[in-house]
């Protein structure tokens, strides 16, 4: 059976195929990862030693702002959407996503959104410089003219994410093969389903926040301006009502990935499947009632602070359940250490370290000392880089043979892993120390007492950045140059799931023409 698809550029422009769209999401995300990473290099170069060496403070602020926005909205989120596109139809026994044209549209909005955002770098007054959290009034009354481009860009990203999320929800509820009950779905599908609900619920809130900014800036409203009866703190409440679930939007798919990879290489079933599902759902629920832990210093009433502190600490319980279940899955397994497994194990350990600092930050009285220091920077980079990004890398290595029909270069991939893990810790671990010692976030220069830790962080960051070119080379070698031995249909000895048991490698263009039978 020949797969019908247009040739050349129109294949990609007009495609409605979940695999092509997934590929485009992943490629786009990798480009953004390199651009956002280049900005991180500028930041770390400036912070290599005390004094102002390379950039003006204002440009430094533009770099931290764009680095955050690009990594969150351009790299991590599109990467997980790309994985969802590739994997969900194959995992539930469907031919494609439920809404293929919308799928095309939700991808193609993204390049436009990021061209808008990046073009602000070349505008008079410079790019947005108020941090990725864009607190009012720094972003409203005091924002540069390019803020309006940022607002429009965020709207577009939001529309794209909401459409992508609706597609996942509709696909999961309508396209499952006969016998694939909800509680038989792979955990990646579950975590993405829950992620999709979070997206649909909070992206409109973000859109509301930027719209209020727009009217404050141009149409005489005072949502966030006390002089007109508004409140700058209200901005933070609205932002973090979006922002905290957003954290889980970025990490839940990685939970699903770890739950697929660890059983495969342990040659043992996932421990506690149903408690994994319930834990994910509880985390998602709790993510809606903890937002103000990002704002313990704004002067909330004590009772409010107590509520948010206790609710936040509760998140440690379901998260702990997940970590223990992964370990129990490995327990008495028959473990081998191919690259995806190495990344998955690193994910569990380093994400948990980020979780520990999360518990510390949850305690309001001590948070007064941690808040807005490098300790926070260390915390969220631990859950994002070795968390979300290592999760994505694990997924790419794990499913690439299924996608391309070829094994990647295992030796190079291991080098990539070991370099990444050394440098990721060298970059972010010292930030705990500089933060505790008293270095505040988002500054281009610092006192000499922080100079050693900053130097180590910078060296680590340069190494981490360079290492990713090795990843790029491994991808090019496998996907483009088509080097590497042929993958078997099952790919990995212990792999389960419809994509490994019912589809050849590479998987056909339209995954399942006839639904498989699941028992």
């Amino acid at each position, binding site marked *: 059976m020949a797969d019908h698809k247009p040739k050349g550029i129109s294949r990609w422009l007009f495609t409605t195929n979940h695999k092509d769209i997934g590929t485009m999401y992943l490629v786009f995300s990798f480009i953004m990862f390199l651009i956002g990473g280049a900005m991180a290099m500028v930041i770390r170069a400036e912070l290599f030693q005390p004094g*102002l060496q390379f950039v003006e403070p204002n440009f430094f602020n533009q770099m931290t702002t764009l680095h955050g926005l690009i990594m969150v909205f351009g790299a991590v989120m599109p990467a997980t959407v790309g994985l969802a596109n590739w994997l969900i139809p194959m995992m539930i026994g469907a031919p494609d996503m439920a809404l293929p044209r919308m799928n095309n549209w939700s991808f193609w909005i993204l390049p436009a959104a990021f061209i808008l955002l990046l073009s602000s770098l070349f505008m008079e007054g410079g790019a947005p410089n108020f941090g990725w959290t864009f607190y009012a009034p720094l972003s409203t009354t005091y924002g540069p003219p390019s803020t309006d481009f940022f607002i429009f860009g965020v709207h577009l990203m939001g529309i794209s994410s909401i459409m992508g999320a609706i597609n996942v929800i509709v696909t999961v509820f309508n396209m499952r093969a006969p016998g694939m009950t909800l509680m038989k779905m792979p955990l990646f599908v579950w975590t993405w389903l829950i992620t999709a609900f979070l997206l649909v619920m909070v992206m409109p809130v973000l859109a509301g926040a930027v719209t209020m900014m727009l009217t404050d800036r141009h149409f005489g409203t005072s949502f966030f301006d006390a002089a007109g009866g508004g409140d700058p703190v209200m901005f933070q409440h609205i932002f973090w009502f979006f922002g905290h679930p957003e954290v889980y939007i970025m990490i839940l798919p990685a939970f699903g990935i770890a739950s697929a990879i660890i059983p495969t290489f342990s040659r043992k079933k996932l421990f506690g499947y149903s408690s994994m599902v319930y834990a994910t759902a509880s985390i998602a629920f709790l993510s809606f009632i903890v937002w103000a832990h990002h704002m313990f210093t704004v002067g909330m009433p004590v009772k409010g602070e107590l509520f948010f502190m206790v609710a936040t600490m509760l998140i440690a319980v379901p998260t702990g359940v997940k970590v223990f279940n992964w370990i129990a899955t490995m*327990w008495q397994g*028959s473990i081998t250490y191919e690259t995806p497994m190495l990344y998955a194990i690193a994910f569990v350990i380093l994400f948990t370290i980020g979780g520990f600092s999360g518990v510390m930050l949850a305690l309001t009285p001590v948070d007064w000392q941690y808040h807005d220091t490098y300790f926070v920077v260390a915390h969220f980079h631990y859950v994002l880089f070795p968390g979300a990004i290592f999760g994505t890398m694990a997924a790419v290595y794990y499913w690439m043979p299924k996608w391309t029909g070829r094994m990647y270069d295992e030796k190079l991939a291991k080098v990539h892993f070991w370099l990444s893990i050394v440098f990721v810790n060298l970059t972010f671990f010292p930030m705990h120390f500089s933060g*505790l010692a008293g270095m505040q976030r988002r500054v281009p220069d610092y006192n000499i007492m922080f100079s050693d830790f900053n130097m180590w962080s910078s060296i680590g960051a340069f190494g981490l950045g360079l290492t990713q070119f090795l990843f790029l080379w491994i991808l090019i070698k496998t996907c483009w140059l088509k080097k590497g031995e042929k993958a078997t249909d099952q790919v990995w000895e212990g792999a389960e799931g419809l994509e490994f048991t019912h589809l050849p490698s590479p998987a056909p263009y339209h995954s399942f023409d006839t639904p498989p039978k699941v028992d």
Partner: protein
Amino acid sequence: MSLFRKVALAVAALAVLVLTGCSDQAYNMREGVTEISKEVYSLHMIVIWVCVVIGVLTFGAMFYSMFAHRKSKNPNPAKFSHSTTVEIIWTVIPFIILIALAVPAVKLLIKMEDSSNPDMTVMVKGWQWKWEYKYIDGDNDPSNDVSFFSNLDDASRQQALNAGKYFSGTKIEDENYLLEVDNPLVIPAGQKVRFLVTAEDVIHSFWVPDFSVKKDAIPGFINEVWTKVDEPGIYRGVCAELCGKDHGFMPIVVKVLEQAEYDAWLAEQVEAAKSGPDLNERTMAQLMTEGEAAYNKYCAACHMPNGQGNGPFPSLIGTEVVTGEGSVGKHIDIVLNGVPGTAMQAFGAQLTEAEIAAIITYERNAWGNDTGDKVQPQDIYDMKNGGGE
């Protein structure tokens, strides 16, 4: 396995290198000097050790499994995939640990938030990019209120710029680099001091780690926070909330004095405030020297030391407001009252008449502007008080 060993060795070597390389630098939260900050520190240490113990147990189990249950040792995997008992155990135990942590945290927080019955009150106001401190008189007599601005010191400013010569070898060695100001906040030892924290423009955050005090300064709202320091000394902090370009350059210095010394200091300030502004006539040379110093301190951060401006901050060279015919009035007006909706602040309340006169004279005659205009403190005083032209 040999690759694994090599990498493990490399990691261990690196860790040792990092730890020894940093041994002379602070790597932990400071204990601070107040009762509260010490309690915060011990809660911090408790939660760290709780995390370390849980981490060692969890990761220990994981590493044991990684080693003992690898395929070459354990070719036949076990078949179990759930156990209600252990799942209940590892849900309940974390829950209990969290409650045990929450109890002291709740108690401490309630104590920290109790700013009632202060001995004295200081208003702290964040500006882009400086702090203003206002001492509110205990007897509610506004004529005894004292207020002043606190800016980054000139030495730090100079060093930051010198280091900008792309690794020229100018190494910064000043241990108070970026942590020194011209006028520190002064408070008495042994007194409960309440800070009313607010901001003029954007959100700032008043943070003094040694007191475990951090409170956001929010324009249009007033937050309360308090401290009681028993040990006289000098304590340093920073603005903790991103507030624009010079967020990293607005330190906080708190000088804690014995009660008697503090009283003497305050009396001196009240006296100075009551004596009125210095409006003596100055020569052109005096105005230019004073003007250059004041310009570099208050204006150069945005308009640059060479007056050329930077991005959204306009150049002052040959501009209509600065060199235009009969533009002196407009020029003074902008410096006194600022430009609404832009980063140009109103300096009328921040600087003395003499400083403003000197700055304006300097701007109109430096960098080839050469207008020959001379502005005297009296002119500024008149304009400020409704007179002038």
